[in-house]
Each structure stands twice: as structure tokens, then as C-alpha cells.
């Protein structure tokens, strides 16, 4: 049984099955958008948290660290409550759309990007602080400086976010609803097809998901090695 499922899965991939393609491309669109948005917010925020000292800073750091383990279903549920018809943002009618899924994934991975960025930037600033102070570089000016100089480490941070976004199922299931052709992504489709007993499609999707994640990590590794060699 599983043998034939495996073969069917490979056939679906090899034939560029349109249903499969639609699901894969929506998955990529949702997760990549979420990572890009979260990176634009999370990287500067993490760097600021590393550089500025203010009352309540420790609490914020602990909260972000704790939220790194936020269960996807909880992230999904909170976005669901916000966007449902009766919720504060209900009038926009975003529930069960890809946009809602992007919002849920941003919430899910933002704490990872903020916390890991803060750690990396704090380390690097430990090394740079005296030199930057000596040149009278302001705190605000240090943020882009350190983000750029930590770019190698930050690629890995962004990948950690992408890994979490593309692998989770709970958040997108709740706010997306797994609607065929509209909000069905790889992880929700795998859950559905498995429960229907359609193991071939589920397995095919699983293979593609793993392949994509491996591909992205491989690319990041090559970029990282290349820059490391040229930057010392």
C-alpha cells in the first residue's frame, strides 16, 4: 500500500499535477510573505532591544523568548478571534483568506526573529561597542550598522522563521479553513488527505515540503559559506 502511494506521489510530482502546484505555490506565497513582513519588523526591533536600556526591557525580552514556543493553534485562535465577524477587525472580511494566514504566521514567527536577532546583535555589539562609542555613533545609527554586519548570522535567523512558518499547520488551519483552491496549503492538505486515506497525495506533498525546506537551507548555507570566505 505505502509502496504504491510512494510511486503515485512521485508521479504527481513528475507530472506537475495542477492541484499539487496550486497548493505548493500558495504555501510558498503565504510563508515567504510572512517571513518578509516579520523580518522587516523583527530585525530592527530585535536590534533595538539589544541596544536600548529602558524600564521593562527585561520583561519584554522574557515575553518574546517565551513566545518563541507559542503553539501555532493559539496564534491561529487569537487571529481568528480578531478577524471573525464579531471580532474587532471583522469588518474587513479577512477570515479564511490567504491574508489571514499570513497575519497568523507573522504573529507566530515574529518572536523567533526578535529574540534571535537580539541575541546575535548583543554579541556583535559587545565586540563593536568601544569602537562605535569612540567614533560617537548614535544608538539609532548603530542599528543598521550592526544588522548589516551581522547579516550572515541573520540569514540563519530568518531561515529558522521560514522553517517554522512552512512547517506549522495549526495556525493556517484555523484562520484559513483549508478551503480547496483558496486557502489550502501543503500542511493542511496533508492533514486532510491523510484523514481521507488519500496517502499518495499526502505523501507527495510531504516530499515536496521537505524538498523545499532542504533547498532553502542549502541555498542559505551556500550564501553563508560564500560570504564567510570573503568576509573573514
Amino acid at each position, binding site marked *: 500500500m505505502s509502496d504504491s502511494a510512494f510511486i503515485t506521489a512521485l508521479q504527481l510530482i513528475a507530472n506537475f499535477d495542477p492541484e499539487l502546484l496550486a497548493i505548493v505555490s500558495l504555501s510558498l506565497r503565504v510563508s515567504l510573505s510572512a517571513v518578509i513582513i516579520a523580518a522587516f519588523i523583527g530585525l530592527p526591533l530585535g536590534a533595538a532591544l539589544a541596544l536600548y536600556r529602558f524600564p521593562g526591557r527585561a520583561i519584554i525580552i522574557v515575553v518574546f523568548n517565551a513566545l518563541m514556543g507559542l503553539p501555532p493553534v493559539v496564534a491561529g485562535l487569537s487571529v481568528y478571534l480578531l478577524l471573525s465577524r464579531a471580532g474587532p477587525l471583522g469588518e474587513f472580511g479577512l477570515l479564511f483568506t490567504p491574508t489571514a494566514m499570513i497575519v497568523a504566521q507573522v504573529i507566530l514567527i515574529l518572536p523567533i526573529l526578535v529574540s534571535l536577532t537580539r541575541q546575535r546583535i548583543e554579541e556583535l555589539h559587545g565586540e563593536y561597542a568601544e569602537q562605535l562609542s569612540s567614533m560617537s555613533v548614535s544608538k539609532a545609527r548603530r542599528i543598521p550598522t550592526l544588522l548589516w554586519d551581522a547579516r550572515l548570522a541573520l540569514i540563519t535567523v530568518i531561515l529558522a522563521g521560514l522553517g517554522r512558518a512552512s512547517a506549522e499547520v495549526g495556525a493556517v488551519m484555523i484562520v484559513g479553513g483549508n478551503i480547496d483552491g483558496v486557502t489550502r496549503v501543503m500542511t493542511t492538505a496533508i492533514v486532510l488527505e491523510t484523514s481521507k486515506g488519500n496517502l499518495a497525495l499526502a505523501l507527495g506533498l510531504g516530499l515536496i515540503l521537505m524538498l523545499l525546506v532542504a533547498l532553502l537551507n542549502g541555498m542559505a548555507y551556500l550564501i553563508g559559506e560564500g560570504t564567510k570566505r*570573503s568576509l573573514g
Partner: protein
Amino acid sequence: MTSLSLAHPTCMPRLHFHDVAYQAAGQLLLGPLSLQLEGNHRTLIMGPNGAGKSLLMRLAHGLVKPSSGHLHWCGHVPRQAMVFQHPVLLRRSARANLEYALAVQGCPRNRRRQRAMEALEHFGLANVTRRPARVLSGGEQQRLALARAWLLEPEVLFLDEPTSALDPAAIRAVEDAINTFHHAGVRIVMSSHDLHQARRLADDVIFLHHGKLLEHSPADTFFQVPATVQAKAFIQGELMD
């Protein structure tokens, strides 16, 4: 040499230390000491490891605040730059490191490249312009740090054991660069535990031992007739505790 030059300040700022002391975790690391840095000559801060040389310079440069006492600049607070024992270079090309220093100072974008290239040439780094700064040799890295300091147009240049990790040829290049600053009218304050270097460079010497200021005298006086037994032992190359 190129046409680079620094404005000769009309009056040299003076730095006064008044009973300055620094302690960390309840331990007195430096002082209390009082001294004046004036003129635009080359002051060498000498003493064995742990004497407080780096700390004295960081206090003077304003990187750390004294625990007690105070220091102030007479006249105006001069533009300053500091070169560290291990140069802290950004993870960018040699030229980008210099352009960054110019950008921070508000140098207009279209002038940065040219000024960075002038400085690279001036300090013998024209052939490594586009190389990542952190893969340069130790001597090149230190000269790049000096080039960066040059672009900050300092009136006072602090150097914290800038040659302690370098080979003789690189030491010579760094010392030449320091003299370039000196001839441009920049006040030099440098720490070293290398007696030969001190004899080559020093106009006056500050001698520290266990965080105490034992001597501050012209270099000739210090080397010929040291006033304390500790300085005498140090000059004779004895191992000190």
C-alpha cells in the same frame, strides 16, 4: 605623500585629571591620580601589565566614567580618535570601513569614496582597497584603523598598545603612521610596554604601577634618572610583580 593635511589647532586643548579613581566590583583599579596632558607632543603611558594603562586612556577618551574625581578639558573638548590593541573593523571591505567613518561624521556621499581612497593610499593600503577588512594581515588591519582615525581629523589620538601583536616591519609602518599624525599637529597619547618603542617615540612618559601614577616626566629624564625604584627596575627590564 599626498596633499592630505590636518588643520593645525591654534591652541592645544589641555586635559586635567583631578583625583580621578576608577573601581570595579569594589576593587580599586586606578588612582586616585591627578595629572595634566598638554602640548601637542607624544605621551607614552608605560608600566607592566595590569598597571592601568588602558584604563587611563579609556578615561581620557571618555569611554569609561571615573568612579570618583573628575576630568575636564581646558579650552574646548577636542575631536578625538582611538586605535585599539586589536583593531575593531567592520565586516566590510577596507574602503567601506573608511566610508562608514566618513558617513558617521556627515561627510557628503559624493565625497566619501575619494577621501577614503586618499587615506588608503596615504597609509599604504591602496592595493587592498576592496579586500574584506577582516582578512587583512595584522599590520594592514592596524594601518586601516589608523587611516580611519586619520579621516576623523582628530586633535588628539589615543593608541592602546597598537603594535603589541605585530612583527617588526609592521611595527615600523605603524610608528611611521603615528609620526605622520604627530607632524600634522595631532596630540599623541599611547600606551606601550615596549621600552625600545618608548625611546623611539616618547616626548614624555607617564609611568603607572598597580594603578598608581608613579612618574610623569620628559622622556630623557625618565629614561636617564627615573625617580622611583619601580621605574628604574622597569627600565632595566626586570620582571616586576
